[in-house]
């Protein structure tokens, strides 16, 4: 083999390896994943810091240019006040979000949330637009495990699919590979909420009601998690979104609906990882399917709000 041919052969071999890896569902060596995830959080924070500094400088210069012609000594003061005002606005917004998150944590004592001190900041997205995932800056060192649901105070965000020491990757609910057991709040009908490569959320397999009965799903219905995903699923009663379109056909036994999520999944800045919830037991011979914790924190199956009762399968000890 000539030296000139060697790169082509190497390329072909690498390509073959990639195809083989794809067929086997291989996600790459964990050591490289872990190293890159460790680099990601500091880089993102540094870049964000630099961007904020640039913003401060830009704002200052703009103000000073406008005021220099009028009163020179007021320029600096004005710029400083503008920057302060911007900073205060950001702080107020952040404060409101944190208060809301704290309220959510109080409301849902049945969910053990990684709260304020170790809340997870979003430090990265996906290398392309068709896969919907985010990186957060909390990993196994903070108790985050694969399969943990992720939410904000507004609603469900996704599920942790990979954890590293100081970072985790979260597959968003609107990804084409995501599926969440969901329930229509008004009618109690259940279905499966799936994402797609375009990022749309669709509630599928919602049974049709008989003639003369109220429809199981209408535009405006609120959707939340059903908790019927089994032990690796999501806790129940976490809000997801609202129905904006119903696709119904009389020939089909099931109908589907397009759901707009409560969380703007494209601009999540921080999230709460639900680490210690109790899964609803799957239907048994007695037919009991709807136990589990209620939204007010008390458990429908009689367990304590902290989830210490014996019923239900522990996700983690």
């Amino acid at each position, binding site marked *: 083999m000539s030296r000139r041919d060697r790169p082509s052969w190497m390329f072909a071999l690498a390509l073959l390896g990639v195809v083989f890896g794809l067929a086997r569902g291989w996600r790459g060596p964990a050591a490289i994943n872990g190293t890159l995830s460790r680099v990601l959080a500091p880089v993102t924070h540094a870049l964000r810091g630099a961007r904020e500094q640039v913003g401060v400088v830009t704002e200052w210069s703009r103000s000073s240019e406008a005021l220099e012609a009028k009163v020179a000594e007021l320029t600096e003061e004005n710029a400083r006040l503008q920057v302060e005002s911007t900073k205060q606005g950001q702080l107020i917004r952040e404060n409101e979000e944190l208060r809301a998150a704290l309220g959510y944590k109080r409301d849902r004592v049945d969910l053990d949330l990684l709260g304020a001190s170790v809340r997870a900041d979003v430090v990265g997205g*996906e290398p392309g637009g068709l*896969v919907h995932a985010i990186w957060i800056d909390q990993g196994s060192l903070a108790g985050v495990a694969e399969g943990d649901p992720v939410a904000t105070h507004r609603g469900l965000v996704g599920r942790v699919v990979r954890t590293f020491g100081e970072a985790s990757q979260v597959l968003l609910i609107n990804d084409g590979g995501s599926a969440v057991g969901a329930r229509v709040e008004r009618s109690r009908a259940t279905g499966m909420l799936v994402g797609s490569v*375009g990022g749309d959320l669709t509630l599928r397999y919602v049974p049709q009601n008989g003639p003369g009965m109220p429809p199981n799903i209408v535009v405006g219905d609120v959707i939340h998690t059903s908790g019927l995903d089994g032990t690796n699923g999501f806790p129940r009663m976490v809000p997801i979104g609202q129905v904006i379109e119903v696709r119904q056909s009389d020939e089909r036994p099931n109908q589907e609906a397009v759901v707009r999520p409560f969380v703007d999944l494209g601009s999540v800045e921080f999230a709460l990882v639900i680490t210690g919830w109790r899964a609803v037991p799957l239907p048994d011979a007695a037919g009991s399917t709807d136990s589990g914790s209620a939204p007010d924190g008390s458990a429908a199956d009689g367990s304590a709000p902290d989830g210490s009762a014996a019923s239900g399968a522990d996700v983690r000890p």
Partner: protein
Amino acid sequence: MNPYGAALILLGVVIAQVALMPSAALGSAVPLLTLLVVVSWGYVRGPRQGMAWALAAGLLSDVMSPKPIGTYTLPLIAAALVVGLGSGRLADAIFMPAALTTLATIVFIAGQIVVLGLIGDIVDVRPAALVPTVLPTVLLNLLWLPIVYFPLRWLARRSGPPRLAWER
């Protein structure tokens, strides 16, 4: 170009893609910095180097993704292939980088849809579902193209003899 230098550049590009590009998103579409680098380098340095950069950038992107390996590599190689085929005849035309970027973006998205469909993801191929993703992505890539293309053209000139007639 020195392969270690190229690997370093691509690593930086992939990290920038993951860390920075989500904040430059238009709806659900993000500028595909990695694709722009592959297209630009393939255009100024030829299809062989374009394919090599596509392989390396794709593998790095795959490592940063929750999907199996190949989800980015294969569509990026397909896009580099299109650049290689397309840059032959009208290589010196002024509109070529923009035209190739548009074509490569469409090929990349189509390739990724095929790969994601193969691994079992839910793929909606109706135009109503695809157009809101494809169009903004093409637009964003065209807007970001000068930021990527001109520095890479400068780098290509410094790292080797010019390939295109107008560069000489």
